[in-house]
Structures are given as structure tokens and as C-alpha cells.
């Protein structure tokens, strides 16, 4: 017997086993998959949020109940309920009648269906068909009279049916009306009940929908949740903000709201994360905000992995070590940046930096105070002197011009100052180049002293002569102290005698007596442009007496320790050594020494001075003759954008990652607190040592600058989403640059931002109505010719105020930029505008005059020579209205003064909404009164009384 050989390629028994095991394995996989999917992190958060919402709704319900109890709604409800019962009782007698009518309605409905939907519709279809056939035959020249008659007959039938429909409808309506008449009183009660309990019912329904009832479990059950689960991943797809993946742009998808469920819902401001409402919904996320969630999304500002739906997958970034530890414990979090994740989130404290992605072309970003502060510091502390930042080019240099330094400062002062700025004044903005962690060894100190001395000699050699043109008369220190606080110096300068506000836009004055001569100070504060025609320092129109008092006070502000400090002298041998070092690469050691012997003392100082100037880049912050356009010596921060640099490009040296996290923020924080620490443990030649000076920044300032630098990224944002470049954008930015450059916001609130001097008023309890005004609606408010004259030659509007609007040394170009800005920002017709005021006559005039008297405008307002008795409550001169104010604004102002400036204005609203007009003139018509008053004020100033 031949062996039977199964020729098939498989053995069915083995196959069956394989099939069994693999299907079992597959089943386990499916089960596991379903289980894991069922237990995803985000579902847990969505369930928790339902509970949170339910608790909130219950509280709401409780409030509705107690409010209903209090305002009698419950009693009313009970009353209505019993009325309803009675009404229902009464209706019992009519039950038969109602039944009969309702039956009638029902049979009429049936009839209607039959006639309308069957007979009539069918007939209509027949008619259409026949009309078509008739038309076709007619086209072929055959007038089918029979068919035509048929159509006519059918049309008649249709009319009859129509008539029938109408009658049925009528009978139906009649029956319905009869029912409604009978039940009218009950239905009314029912409607009242529904209205009374509308809120309650709505909240109840909400609670129902949020309950974990069997339906919820059914819809979200494992394996059944593919149909219509209530727990779902939520996402926005952002067409206008694509992600740039080098060769292709893909749509940005953000799913953050899958867990951050209340991000756009009011009422969860105090809820625990991830359920907290986004702060300021009117500005961010809210549907009507400028950054709605469906257009802007989340990751463009916050960074991170948009499509991820787990805590660690999103690349959340901790704010600080404490939070990092908490997260590690709670979520098993590790720093994603250290793990090489590219799209990490921006730690929350630096998130304002992200505004730069779209707002980088703007001078300042409203409502991003930290970023704004950081950018301002980069200008005022001199970062921009060495580091280029796109959008911040061409700003005024941080330090003073040194063209005439010889006439302002003594050489000894400058030597001591540059050697150790902080020993002169702890608030000094000049950074420290010397005596730092990498150059405090004796060799470096000696070399630095030689560099410093030659540098100062060089600067003095280049300096023009200058002599103050006025001699300071003696003045009163106490009067000067009061003036400095009151007239407005402190909007830009800080001084240690005043602790309620410390501005740092301009130098701190706490030790200025150790720096300048009395004659210099006196001449300078009276006319700053005498010393430096290009200075931004304005004149406060000080009288001789005021200037003398302020000079006396400032000269009393001395730092005796600094005065007595030793001047850093140098060793000429060390200087020569440095010169040889510089010359050697070109000439060789022999040649260099030969060259040196040919140089006299002066030439040697000049040679090393210029080399030193270039080495440290002094021209970044100071105007120095011949170096006006020299390029800054630091790293360009925007090409490539610093925040998007590869970590490998940052030189952490031998620093300990435990102490300095090897991340962008870690590097920057370390660099800004001690720039030289990355030289630690390195062997570096003197000339190659790190040179970035130490700014001794406060923690807040460092964080602000970090925000501004970390925000410089390479994220792709299309032009259409970029602010400040469309329409009037560039014109507005031109004005905003002047505003930023001259620190207008040190005093004024502009676009609701700034007004820093108000801090002093607030802390000292001074009425804010006496502070510099809020410039909201300024473009709507003042006439352009007046504005121009005012900025050209300031004449105070409220001369009794202590604080003064300074006279700025502005060119026409700057004035135009500012006026244009204010007008365009308020959507004004610009530059020419027709003004609508009327010349009042007859009774209109007399009524307007009566209104003016009734409202007692002159109780506060100046009227030419008539000044109110109490200057504490005085208000601007009404005779100037016609030349200063725009007529439309005057009416808006009268309507609601607080809305046109802010709540601090002393001007009350005389026409509160919901209240009758304050006067019977013009028939008590508020609008007519305001317009008439405006017209009257315009006539007053033009002498038409």
C-alpha cells in the first residue's frame, strides 16, 4: 500500500490550532484595545467635568429656589398651581363639549388630508401632465380641443377642491378657537407658570443631561461607544495658521479643549485645572474676542503638541522646579525639552512672548505687560545695542551721547563709574563689565584697568568742549524735593526718596550730586537741548526759581562712599603688553615691539582705547564720534530666531545641569543673571573671555526679558494673520514708536495701557483725577490744528495741576506721527473734517443758556476770567471748547463721561440712562439738551453771547 501523502500545503489540524490560538490572541487584543480606549485619560477628565458642571448647576438651582422664595415667586407659583387645579376642575364641566370639538377637529384633519393630499394633489399632477401634452401637440400644429376642454374641466374641479379645503380649514379653525376659548383662562395660567419657572426648568434639564444615567453608560459603554458617545475628542482645525513642516504646510489641529473643557465657558474661573476658564475671555478664546478659539486655537500661543490628548503627550512645560516636581509625582512627567521634543509648550510665565508671532511688527503689544516690559527693557538697558532684534531696529540708544562728555563729567568719575557702576548707584543701568566671575583674577584686573584708562582717554580726546551757559543760583532743597515729586520728573526717573513709584525709563537720580555740577544740572533741566540737541529729555517749563530749587535738591543727592572711592589706576607696562598682543598677529612679536616703541604715550592710549571700544562695543549704547553706525557686537537674536535655536547651538560650557537646566529658559536665565558663568572651568585667553556685561537684573525684569527673547521663534504665520502691517497698521505703528520712544505711557494711559505714574497716586492716596489724563478717544476728542499747536508749544489745560505736560523737542514728523496715530486709532476722518454745530437763536438759545445755568457747569469749570473758588474741584476752561474739542465728542462726553475716559474722571454724567433728563428745557429731551449745550459752548468761545 502506497503511503498516503497529503499533498495539501497545510495540515488542517495544525491550521485549526493556529486559527484557534490566533483568534484567541486577537480577541484578547480587541479586548485590551477596547479596555485601554475606554480608560483614556481624557475620558476621565470629561466625566469629571460633567460632575463639576452638575454641582454648579445644582448650586444655581439652589440660588434660583431661594431667590424665588425671597421675591415671592414660590408663593406665586403655589397660587398659580392652585388656580390651575381650579381651572382644570372648572373645565371638567366642559369635558364633553371639548371632546366633541376635538373629535370634530380630528375628523376635519382626516378630511383635510384626504382632500388636500390625495384628491387635490393628484388632480394638480394630472393637470400639469395634460397641459404639457397639450403644449407639445400645439407645437406640432395640432390644437387638441378635447384635451383643452378636459384641462378646463379639471381646473374647475381644482377650484372646487380649493374651496372645499378652505371650508375645512375654516371649520377646523372654528373648532380650535372654540376649544381655546373654553380653555383660555387655564392656558393663560399654564403660560404664566412656564414663564415663572423657565430658569428653573432650564437648569433642571441641564442637570438631567449631565447625569450619569443608564443612557450615558449605554452610549459610552465599552465597544458600543463607536455609535454616538457623549464623551468625544474635541478639536479645532486652523486653516489660517498652518504648521510649517519644511516642505509642506499642514493644517494645525488643536485638541486641547478635549480636557480643558471649560476653556471658553464662563463660570469656571476658580475651578481646578484642567477645567479652569481661560483668563480674559473678551481678549482670548471667546467667540467674540479678537482671538477666537476656532480661528486662533491654542498651540500658536501656548506651543505644545496640538493633536495629543494626554498630559505628557501634549508636552506640557512646568513653570518652575516646584511645579515640575508636582507634575512628576502626579503624572510621571519628565521635561519634554530634554527628551528632544520639538513642539514643547511655552511655560505659562513666558506665554506672552508668543504674542510676537503675530504682533512682532508692532511697537508694543497691548495687554501683554510682561512682554512689553521685556521689550522696553531690551531698549532701555541696552540689549539692543549689541543684539539685533527684528522689529526693534533704529531705536534711540540706551546710554547718553558721549560727544561732549568732557563738559559733563570728570575723568575720575567716568573711571570709577565704568569700573563699578553699581558702587555709584545700585539702580544704575550701565552694566558691569569688570570685576566679574571670569575676570577677577589679578592678571585680568590689571589688564582691565589698563583697557579702561585708555578707553576713557580716547573718549575724552574725541569729546567736544562744553560749558553750561547758566550758573545755578542758590535754591531750597526741600522745595526742590517737593517739585521733583510733583511736576513729573518721576514719570521717567527714579529717586530713592520716593518709594511709592520707581520709574526706570531714564537714569535714577539718587546719587546725581556725585556725578554732575550744579551749573550743568541747572542748565540741563531748563533747556536739555543746550547740552545735547538730540536728547529725548523734555522741558518742564521750569521757572528760574523752580530750576534752582530742583538743582539744590539734586546736588544734595550724593554718594559719599563713591566720592571717596579709589580711582582705578593702571600699569603702563600692562597696557603695553596688551598693545603688543593686538599687534602681534599682523607684525609678529618683534614687529609689534618695534611698532610700540615708535608710539608715544598718547598714541599708545589712543591705540588701546580704540581697540577696547571695539572690543566691548560701547557704541551699542552710546553715540560716539565715528562709531554712529557701527554694528553691535552680540549675537543676532532674530536670524536665526533665538527661541527656535537647536539646544546644541547653546554653549552651556561645563555648567552643572542640576543647577542650570540645559534648556532654552535655563540658558537664558543663567546668562542674564551671570553672563560670564559659562566660562567657568574653561581655559580661555584674556581676549577670548566672555564679554557680555552683568546687568544685575531683578527677578521680574529678567523674566520679562526672557519672555521677549523666548518669544522669538521661527513659527510660520501668514501675512493675513500678522498684526500691524495691513491698512493703517504701519501709520499707527509710526505713532506708537514715538509714543514708546518718548515714554508717553509713563504718564498717560494710551489704549488702556501704561499710566505708570498713577502707581504713585494710588499708593499715596492722591486723587487719580489729578493725574495725567487717560488718552482714550483722544483722536475723537481734539481738533487737529489744536493738537498740533499743543504738541508744538504746550499750554496747560488745567494749570492748577501740579503735574505738567512736558514740552517735547519734537520735529513736525514726530508730531504728525502722533496726531495721525490718535486719529486713525479712533477711526476718524483724517486729516480734514467738517464740524457740525448750530448757531442757536431765539428760544433755543435761551433754553440752552438756562440749561447751562441749571447744570451749574461753572461750579467747577473755568470760564475765561471767571475761575471757581475751589481749585480742588476746578475743570478746564469752557471758552476754549470751540477751538479744542470736536463737536461729536462733546455730545458723547456729556452722555457718558466715564465711558469716554475712565471711572476716575470728575465729570459726572447728568443724563444717566433710565432716569429722566435733569432739566425741563427742550421738552425734557435728553439728546436735544446735550446737543444744545454743545452748541451753546461752541458759541460761548466765539464770543456769541
Amino acid at each position: 500500500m502506497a503511503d498516503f501523502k497529503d499533498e495539501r500545503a497545510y495540515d488542517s489540524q495544525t491550521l485549526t490550532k493556529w486559527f484557534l490560538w490566533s483568534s484567541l490572541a486577537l480577541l484578547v487584543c480587541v479586548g485590551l484595545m477596547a479596555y485601554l480606549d475606554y480608560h483614556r485619560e481624557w475620558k476621565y477628565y470629561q466625566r469629571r467635568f460633567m460632575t463639576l458642571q452638575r454641582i454648579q448647576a445644582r448650586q444655581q438651582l439652589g440660588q434660583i429656589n431661594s431667590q424665588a422664595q425671597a421675591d415671592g415667586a414660590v408663593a406665586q407659583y403655589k397660587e398659580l398651581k392652585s388656580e390651575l387645579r381650579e381651572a382644570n376642575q372648572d373645565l371638567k364641566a366642559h369635558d364633553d363639549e371639548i371632546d366633541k370639538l376635538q373629535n370634530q377637529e380630528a375628523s376635519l384633519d382626516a378630511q383635510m388630508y384626504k382632500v388636500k393630499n390625495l384628491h387635490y394633489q393628484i388632480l394638480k399632477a394630472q393637470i400639469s401632465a395634460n397641459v404639457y401634452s397639450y403644449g407639445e401637440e400645439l407645437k406640432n400644429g395640432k390644437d387638441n380641443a378635447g384635451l383643452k376642454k378636459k384641462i378646463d374641466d379639471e381646473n374647475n374641479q381644482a377650484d372646487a377642491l380649493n374651496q372645499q379645503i378652505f371650508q375645512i380649514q375654516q371649520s377646523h379653525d372654528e373648532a380650535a378657537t372654540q376649544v381655546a376659548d373654553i380653555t383660555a383662562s387655564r392656558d393663560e395660567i399654564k403660560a404664566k407658570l412656564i414663564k415663572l419657572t423657565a430658569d428653573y426648568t432650564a437648569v433642571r434639564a441641564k442637570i438631567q443631561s449631565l447625569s450619569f444615567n443608564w443612557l450615558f453608560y449605554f452610549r459610552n459603554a465599552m465597544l458600543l461607544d463607536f455609535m454616538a458617545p457623549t464623551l468625544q475628542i474635541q478639536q479645532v482645525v486652523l486653516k489660517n495658521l498652518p504648521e510649517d513642516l519644511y516642505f509642506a504646510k499642514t493644517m494645525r489641529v488643536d485638541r486641547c479643549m478635549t480636557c480643558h473643557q471649560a476653556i471658553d465657558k464662563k463660570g469656571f474661573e476658580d475651578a481646578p485645572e484642567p477645567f479652569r476658564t481661560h483668563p480674559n475671555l473678551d481678549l482670548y478664546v471667546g467667540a467674540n474676542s479678537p482671538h477666537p478659539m476656532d480661528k486662533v486655537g491654542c498651540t500658536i500661543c501656548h506651543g505644545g503638541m496640538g493633536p495629543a490628548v494626554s498630559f505628557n503627550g501634549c508636552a506640557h512645560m512646568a513653570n518652575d522646579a516646584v511645579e515640575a516636581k508636582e507634575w512628576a509625582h502626579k503624572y510621571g512627567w519628565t521635561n519634554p525639552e530634554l527628551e528632544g521634543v520639538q513642539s514643547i509648550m511655552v511655560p505659562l510665565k513666558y506665554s506672552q512672548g508668543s504674542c510676537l508671532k503675530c504682533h512682532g511688527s508692532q511697537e508694543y503689544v497691548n495687554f501683554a505687560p510682561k512682554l512689553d516690559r521685556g521689550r522696553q527693557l531690551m531698549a532701555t538697558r541696552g540689549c539692543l545695542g549689541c543684539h539685533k532684534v527684528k522689529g526693534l531696529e533704529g531705536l534711540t540708544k540706551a546710554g547718553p551721547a558721549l560727544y561732549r562728555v568732557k563738559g559733563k563729567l570728570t575723568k575720575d568719575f567716568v573711571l570709577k563709574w565704568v569700573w563699578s557702576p553699581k558702587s555709584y548707584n545700585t539702580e544704575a543701568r550701565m552694566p558691569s563689565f569688570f570685576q566679574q566671575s571670569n575676570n577677577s583674577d589679578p592678571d585680568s584686573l590689571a589688564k582691565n584697568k589698563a583697557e579702561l584708562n585708555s578707553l576713557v582717554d580716547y573718549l575724552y580726546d574725541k569729546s567736544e568742549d562744553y560749558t553750561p551757559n547758566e550758573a545755578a543760583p542758590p535754591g531750597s532743597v526741600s522745595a526742590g524735593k517737593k517739585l521733583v515729586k510733583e511736576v513729573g520728573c518721576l514719570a521717567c526717573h527714579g529717586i530713592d526718596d520716593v518709594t511709592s513709584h520707581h520709574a526706570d525709563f531714564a537714569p535714577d537720580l539718587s546719587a546725581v550730586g556725585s556725578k554732575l555740577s550744579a551749573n550743568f544740572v541747572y542748565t540741563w533741566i531748563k533747556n536739555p537741548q543746550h547740552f545735547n540737541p538730540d536728547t529725548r529729555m523734555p522741558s518742564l517749563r521750569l521757572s528760574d526759581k523752580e530750576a534752582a530749587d530742583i538743582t539744590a535738591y539734586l546736588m544734595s543727592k550724593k554718594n559719599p562712599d563713591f566720592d571717596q572711592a579709589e580711582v582705578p589706576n593702571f600699569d603702563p607696562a600692562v597696557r603695553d603688553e596688551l598693545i603688543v598682543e593686538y599687534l602681534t598677529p599682523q607684525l609678529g612679536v618683534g614687529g609689534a615691539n618695534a611698532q610700540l616703541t615708535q608710539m608715544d604715550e598718547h598714541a599708545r592710549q589712543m591705540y588701546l582705547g580704540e581697540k577696547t571700544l571695539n572690543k566691548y562695543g560701547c557704541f551699542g549704547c552710546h553715540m560716539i564720534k565715528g562709531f554712529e553706525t557701527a554694528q553691535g557686537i552680540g549675537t543676532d537674536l532674530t536670524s536665526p530666531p533665538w527661541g527656535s535655536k537647536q539646544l546644541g547651538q547653546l554653549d552651556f560650557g561645563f555648567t552643572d545641569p542640576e543647577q542650570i537646566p540645559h534648556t532654552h529658559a535655563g540658558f537664558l536665565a543663567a546668562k542674564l543673571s551671570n553672563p560670564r558663568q559659562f566660562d567657568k572651568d574653561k581655559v580661555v585667553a584674556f581676549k577670548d573671555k566672555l564679554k557680555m556685561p552683568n546687568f544685575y537684573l531683578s527677578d521680574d525684569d529678567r523674566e520679562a526679558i526672557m519672555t521677549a527673547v523666548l518669544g522669538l521663534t521661527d513659527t510660520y504665520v501668514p501675512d493675513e494673520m500678522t498684526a500691524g502691517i495691513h491698512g493703517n497698521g504701519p501709520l499707527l505703528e509710526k505713532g506708537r514708536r514715538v509714543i514708546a520712544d518718548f515714554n508717553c505711557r509713563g504718564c498717560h494711559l494710551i489704549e488702556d495701557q501704561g499710566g505708570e505714574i498713577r502707581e504713585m497716586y494710588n499708593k499715596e492716596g492722591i486723587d487719580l483725577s489729578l493725574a495725567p489724563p487717560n488718552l482714550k478717544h483722544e483722536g475723537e476728542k481734539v481738533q487737529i490744528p489744536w493738537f498740533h499747536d499743543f504738541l508744538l508749544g504746550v499750554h496747560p489745560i488745567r494749570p492748577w495741576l501740579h503735574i505738567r505736560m512736558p514740552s517735547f523737542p519734537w520735529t513736525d514728523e514726530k508730531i504728525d506721527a502722533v496726531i495721525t496715530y490718535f486719529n486713525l486709532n479712533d477711526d476718524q476722518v483724517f486729516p480734514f473734517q467738517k464740524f457740525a454745530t448750530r448757531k442757536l437763536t431765539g428760544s433755543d438759545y435761551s433754553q440752552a443758556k438756562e440749561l447751562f445755568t441749571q447744570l451749574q457747569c461753572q461750579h467747577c469749570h473755568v470760564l475765561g476770567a471767571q475761575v471757581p473758588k475751589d481749585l480742588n474741584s476746578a475743570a478746564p476752561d469752557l471758552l476754549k471748547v470751540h477751538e479744542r474739542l470736536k463737536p461729536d465728542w462733546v455730545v458723547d462726553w456729556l452722555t457718558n463721561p466715564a465711558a469716554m475716559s475712565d471711572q476716575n474722571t470728575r465729570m459726572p454724567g447728568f443724563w444717566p440712562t433710565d432716569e429722566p433728563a435733569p432739566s425741563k428745557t427742550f421738552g425734557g429731551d435728553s439728546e436735544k439738551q446735550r446737543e444744545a449745550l454743545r452748541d451753546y459752548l461752541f458759541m460761548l468761545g466765539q464770543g456769541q453771547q
Partner: protein
Amino acid sequence: MDSKKVLAFLLAAGLAAAMAGCGSNDEDEGFGQGGGGGNTTASTTTLGTASISGKVTLSGKAPAAEIISMDADPVCKSQHAGSVKDETVEADAQGDLANVFVYVTDAGSVAAPTTPVSLVQKGCMYSPHVFGIQVGQPLEIVNDDPTLHNVHCMAVTNDAFNVGQPTQGMSTQKKFDKPEVLVKFKCDVHSWMHCFAGVVNNPFYSVSGNDGGFKISQLPAGTYTVVAVHEKYGASQPQKVTVADGGSQTVNFTFAAQ
């Protein structure tokens, strides 16, 4: 059963469930059901019978009250026979401190009464100088002087307002919609005029009288935190006190004169 049938069955079941869910809340109209979840700050309270009373004193020498000069407005001046003193620190020789707003910070809210609180400007002074008002309770501000006043409410949490009242007898009604202690009112026409309101969401407050005494009544039994607030000296340390139904407890406050 093939898979299509299973799917159809499930869909049908889901649909039925959805309909059942929609139908289930038809009966829930009318007050009083549910709402028991209120447990923390948003809770509501009913009035009780307990009370807290006490006295506010000023330690140290009270600053001499400034004499107000009303020269700027003869209408004001003519209404006072003698000199008028500033009401900021109203303390007598024994240190009894008046015009201190005392309130319970952690009681639930009670619906506001509809009777208005009245604030009168008479003789260019506010009366009362310090008062309490409930959230949602109307405030009636009356000008009883034949001169211009403006009522400039400097609220921070609530909406601020500034209303001119140029004629005698004018009155304005306002409401506050959030608790805020204290809200300052001032008149910009008469720089000496100011007064303060404590806006709270229940009637458990009191303002100390000339003898420094205050009494908070109608409290339900419980443990409460009581705070006294003075316009110049600020808020006192909070004090905990427990009251039983019908019972009364004493709490005293002392401010240090500055």
C-alpha cells in the same frame, strides 16, 4: 443574527433610550426640587434667631478731627451754624469708635430686600457716613441741597458710576451686583465729601454707633467669622464665633490710632 441586524438593534435601542431620556424631565417644572448641592460659598441661608453684638474701640489717642472749610460753596456753609468736623475718625473720649462696618464673612447669601437704603446729601455732607447694603438692594441717593453735587462711586469690583445732581430733591437709584467692602463715594464738587458702603450678600452686618456698639441679628445657629472694617484703619483680624439658636455672643474689636 448577522452583523447588520446587531447594528440595527443597537441603533434602535440607542434611539429608544434617547427618547426615554428626553421624556424623563417633563414632570420637573416648579421650584423646590433638587438644588441641594449648594454647599460652599454660593450657598443660601435662611434667617435665624441668633445674634452677635459687641463694641469697637480705638486704642491710643484719636487724631483730632479736621474742621471742614466750606468757604468754596456758600450754599453749604450757610446750612451749618457752627463748624463742621470731618467724620473719618469718629471716636469719643472713651475711645468708642463709630462708623465701623462689622459683618459676617462666611454666612450664605440671603435674598435682598426690596426696601431701598437711603443716602442723603444734606449740608454738603453724606448721611449716613458709613452704611451697609445688600447685593441687589436698591440704593436711593438724594440731593437735599440747593447746589450741585456729583455722586462719584469708586467701586472696584462693582460697576463704578458718577452721577451729577444739579438740583435740590433729585434722586438716583442704583444697585450693586457683587459683594464689596468698602465702596467709596465722593463728591468732586466738594472735595471734603466722602462716605462708604459695605456691600454684602446677606443682612448679617452692622455699623457701630457713637457708643462703638454694633449688633448683628437674625443669624441662623452656626460658627461664623466676623470682621470689622474702618475706612482709615482698614480691616480687623477676623474673629471666629459660634452662636446657638436664640443665643447671643459678644465680639469686640480694637483699632490702634494712627
